[in-house]
C-alpha cells in the first residue's frame, strides 16, 4: 500500500545539487570520519533524536513558564525562544523531507505521546494571549501568532484523523 509518507523518489544527483543538504552537511559536519563507522553513526543519530525531542520539550516548557511567570515583559523573550526551537525543529524536518522522509506527516505525528505536548502548547498560547498588550503591534503580533499556531494544530489534528480513517478504510 502506498502511504502518503512516501513523498517521492530521491535521486543521487538531486542530493548532490541540493544547496540545503550541502549546507546542512557542513553545519552537521556530516563528512566527519566519525560517521564512516556505521554503528557510531546510528547510535549518534539516535542520541541526536533524543536531544532534539528534549530540546522541543524544554524549549516549550521554558517559553510557557516565561509567559505565565514573567507576563508582558517576558513576552519577546518567550516568543524568541519558541521561534528558535521551532526553527531548529523545522530545519530537521526539511532535511528529512529533502531526502524523501516525511517525518511530520500527520498520520505519523499524531500519536498519544503528542497529547501532553499539545496541552503544553495550548498553555503557552493561552499565556501569550494573556500576557499580550491589548493594542499596538506587539499585541497584534502576539494574538496573530497564537491564533496561527492554534489553527496549525487544528489543521494537523484534522488532517491526521482524516488520513488515518482513509488508511483504515483502504
Amino acid at each position, binding site marked *: 500500500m502506498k502511504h502518503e509518507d512516501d513523498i517521492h523518489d530521491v535521486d543521487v544527483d538531486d542530493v548532490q545539487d541540493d544547496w540545503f543538504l550541502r549546507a546542512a552537511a557542513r553545519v552537521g559536519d556530516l563528512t566527519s570520519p566519525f560517521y564512516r*563507522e556505521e554503528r*557510531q553513526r546510528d547510535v549518534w543519530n*539516535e542520541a541526536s533524536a533524543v536531544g532534539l525531542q528534549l530540546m522541543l520539550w524544554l524549549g516549550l516548557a521554558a517559553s510557557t513558564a516565561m509567559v505565565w511567570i514573567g507576563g508582558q515583559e517576558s513576552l519577546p523573550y518567550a516568543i524568541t525562544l519558541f521561534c528558535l526551537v521551532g526553527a531548529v525543529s523545522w530545519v530537521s524536518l526539511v532535511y528529512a523531507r529533502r531526502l524523501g522522509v516525511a517525518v511530520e506527516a500527520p498520520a505519523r505525528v499524531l500519536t498519544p505521546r503528542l497529547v501532553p505536548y499539545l496541552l503544553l502548547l495550548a498553555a503557552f498560547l493561552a499565556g501569550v494571549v494573556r500576557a499580550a498588550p491589548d493594542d499596538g503591534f506587539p499585541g497584534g503580533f502576539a494574538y496573530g501568532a497564537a491564533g496561527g499556531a492554534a489553527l496549525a494544530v487544528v489543521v494537523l489534528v484534522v488532517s491526521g484523523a482524516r488520513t488515518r480513517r482513509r488508511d483504515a478504510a483502504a
Partner: protein
Amino acid sequence: MGRTSAAGRANRVRAARSALGLTQAELAAAVDVTRQTVVAVEAGNYAPSVYLALAVAAHLGRSVEELFGHDPAAPSGRSHDTEVHS
C-alpha cells in the same frame, strides 16, 4: 533500545570468529569498524548493514546466511557476554 538494535536476535559470528582464533579487535580492524561494534553485533544488540554483514562473512569465510540466517536452535550471542566489556 533504539532502532539499530537487532532485538537480541541470535547469530553465529562469535562462534565463527572463535573457530578462527580471532579476537574481537582483530575482526573489527579487518572490517573497519570499532571493537564495540563487533561486540554489539555478536551480542545481538546491533543489526549490521548488509555491507558490514558481507565484510564480516567474507573475513570469517562464511556466508551471511550462515552467520545471520534464522535458526531457532542457534545459541544466542548473549550467552557468552563475559568477554564483551573491557
